[in-house]
């Protein structure tokens, strides 16, 4: 088999060597518990505090506004459930979009189960939140709005600044899932009025199992867990020092490389998209009409199915996905594409190719050749003219 091509960076990314190097001492001699008062503890505390400060700088935040978590799912749950539970006595509604990651959607369902009211804002065919719909739904009964900055399946970029302004004006707090946005979009808590924001380490070259949630000063929040007073009681439990250090390093690298990375990925993504559309004129690129992050290409070809295509691609050494990976690894229709009004036969044909640190022009060129060939074959088998 030729060199494998990994086009699933939206699922996860490899740990960067700089990140691994930064973490290693904390798996060795610097193993202390940050809560201990002795030398080992002080050493760990210092490393943790520094990591928090460095990550805060990457977000335009104060260090005390950064809470380390286990990743995107915990961060979204902490924000949605934590902020709603803290405000439920006076405001019980939550406004979100139908294209959120399940980490937000399922947390909002839990809100509804606990007596809250769930309101889903309308999105257009490109996945953009309709401003009028958002405006109509956010009233003085809304505790919290949650809108993901960059969608993980189609890459659509929401106008978070404008939506957060509206929410603020109505007295609602505004959360954004920025797991796919960090390192792609300029994120600055000083200029964008979001109240909370979630990032995840393993999407930006840090390990799985670490993430962070920004929580603006003064925003009421109930913790999800109870125990020690770590992280101001927002996230009790002995801190994951090594990975917090790794996350801070990865975040710094991502911010430093952000603009260059955007251009590089966008150039390759657009080249791949153009090549595929030239060879497969009836292919549909989802989210194409709106502003898109540069690392995601979600494409459906009529007369094919994602399950078979993913198998065929994988057997040729090309890794991608059909949307978000499910626990069993099986392919199920995407709630995001369904919300965009994508026809079900196209929805079940969707393939998400996501670019990142491992992507090269050679790899893109190979997929640009291989993908149409596999499409031709799939269509011959399904009896549809290519």
């Amino acid at each position: 088999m030729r060199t494998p091509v990994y086009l699933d960076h939206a699922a996860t990314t490899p740990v960067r060597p700089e990140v691994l190097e930064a973490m290693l001492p904390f798996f060795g001699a610097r193993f202390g518990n940050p809560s201990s008062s002795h030398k080992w503890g002080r050493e760990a505390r210092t490393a943790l505090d520094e990591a928090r400060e460095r990550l805060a700088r990457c977000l335009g935040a104060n260090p005390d506004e950064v809470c380390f978590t286990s990743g995107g799912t915990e961060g979204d749950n902490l924000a949605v459930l934590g902020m709603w539970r803290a405000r439920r006595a006076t405001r019980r509604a939550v406004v979100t979009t139908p294209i959120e990651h399940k980490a937000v959607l399922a947390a909002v369902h839990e809100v509804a189960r606990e007596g809250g009211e769930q309101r889903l804002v309308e999105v257009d065919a490109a996945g953009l939140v309709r401003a009028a719909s958002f405006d109509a739904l956010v009233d003085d009964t809304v505790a919290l709005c949650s809108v993901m900055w960059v969608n993980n399946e189609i890459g659509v970029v929401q106008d978070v600044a404008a939506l957060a302004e509206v929410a603020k004006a109505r007295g609602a707090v505004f959360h954004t899932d920025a797991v796919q946005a960090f390192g792609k979009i300029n994120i600055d808590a000083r200029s964008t009025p979001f109240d909370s924001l979630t990032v995840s380490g393993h999407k930006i070259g840090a390990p799985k199992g670490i993430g962070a949630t920004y929580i603006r000063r003064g925003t009421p929040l109930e913790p999800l867990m109870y125990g020690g007073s770590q992280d101001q009681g927002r996230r009790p439990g002995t801190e994951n020092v090594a990975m917090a250090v790794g996350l801070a390093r990865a975040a710094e690298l991502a911010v430093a490389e952000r603009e260059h990375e955007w251009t590089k990925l966008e150039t390759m993504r657009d080249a791949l998209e153009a090549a595929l559309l030239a060879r497969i004129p009836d292919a549909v690129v989802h989210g194409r009409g709106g502003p898109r992050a540069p690392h995601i290409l979600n494409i459906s070809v009529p007369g094919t199915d994602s399950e078979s295509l993913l198998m065929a691609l994988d057997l040729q050494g090309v890794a991608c996905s059909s949307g978000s990976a499910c626990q069993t690894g099986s392919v199920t229709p995407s709630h995001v594409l369904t919300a965009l009004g994508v026809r079900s036969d196209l929805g079940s044909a969707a393939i998400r190719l996501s670019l990142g640190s491992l992507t090269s022009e050679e790899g893109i060129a190979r997929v640009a050749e291989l993908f149409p060939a596999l499409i031709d074959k799939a269509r011959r088998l399904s009896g549809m003219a290519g």
Partner: protein
Amino acid sequence: MSGGVDSSVAAALLHAQGFDVVGATMKLFCYGDDVPDKPCCSLDSINDARRICESLGVPHYVLNLESSFGHDVVDNFVSEYAAGRTPIPCVRCNTFTKFRDLLRKADAIDAAYIATGHYARVVNGELHRGLDQAKDQTYFLWGIDRAVVSRMLLPVGHQTKAETRDVARALGLIVAEKVESQDICFVPDGDHTRIIRQRLGDDAPALARGPIVLADGRVVGEHAGHARFTIGQRRGLPGGFAEPMFVVAIRPESRAVVIGPREALLGRGVIARDMNWLVDRPAVGAVVQVQVRHRAPPAAAEIVRLDAHEIELALDEPVAAITPGQSLVLYDGSRVLGGGFIERSGAGRPQLPVLAAGRASLTGKPNGQA
């Protein structure tokens, strides 16, 4: 690959023989929270299959065939019970899901063969019983397209179950000691009435109270739904008769379950529909062996009528509990000729004297795997 020992060993054997193996597990229904963890088809089983493939160093995929399985297998299962018959879902799963829909997925990746852990053999392009007579599964395989047989690889069909486990142990497969699934995969707790209720509602006639009657129409009791019964069943019937009584017929139009003594269970002929042939269609007058239940002993029979839709056979000796909805499979020795779904008992050859029937083993399990 179900994650069980048979399909795992099948994959391992083919891999050892140098085949380029790709593992696949079919996801056939939704794993709801209410489904208790069971040995077959659960999430754990998918994980077991994936781990087997990882240990062999071959790819593994989970293929979602829920929608077509629901339509081809589960819907039919429910409607058969509603019609007073006893369905055999494993046959339809093999016919439509495994050896048609899954085969299309195999085509998509240029796979030349489709291999399973069935106890059956392919010899010279024809389907034969598995070498382990106690495990033979050809009773469930008659419905597949004849052209597919030459693409089937059935490695464990050439050995006994004990040998399969020995191979699994020798290879250190994690599933070597796994218990065998006994139930229908989408009825993991063995209660098939639950899925009937789910699909047809609490007030489904098949689950409504009805009379238990004798052949002459006399009502001798009441039952809680005819879908709880199958031909030959004794469980759930009233006592107090001079001899053991069995279900001999189910009449969905009146919701009646008809009971009778052992003699009333005996059929001298059998009529089946939806015939599928795995060899050239035999002629009227041909003498074959037939099987009307999984694990029933083969019975000699003569084809007395045959057209495109229906077959009628006369049995040399009466056979007990010929059950509408179950399979009729025709054999020539170990060779599978074809099969169909049993419509009803036939008249047989009235000129022959009725011979004393051997004590057939009866079972209340719908697919006879108990």
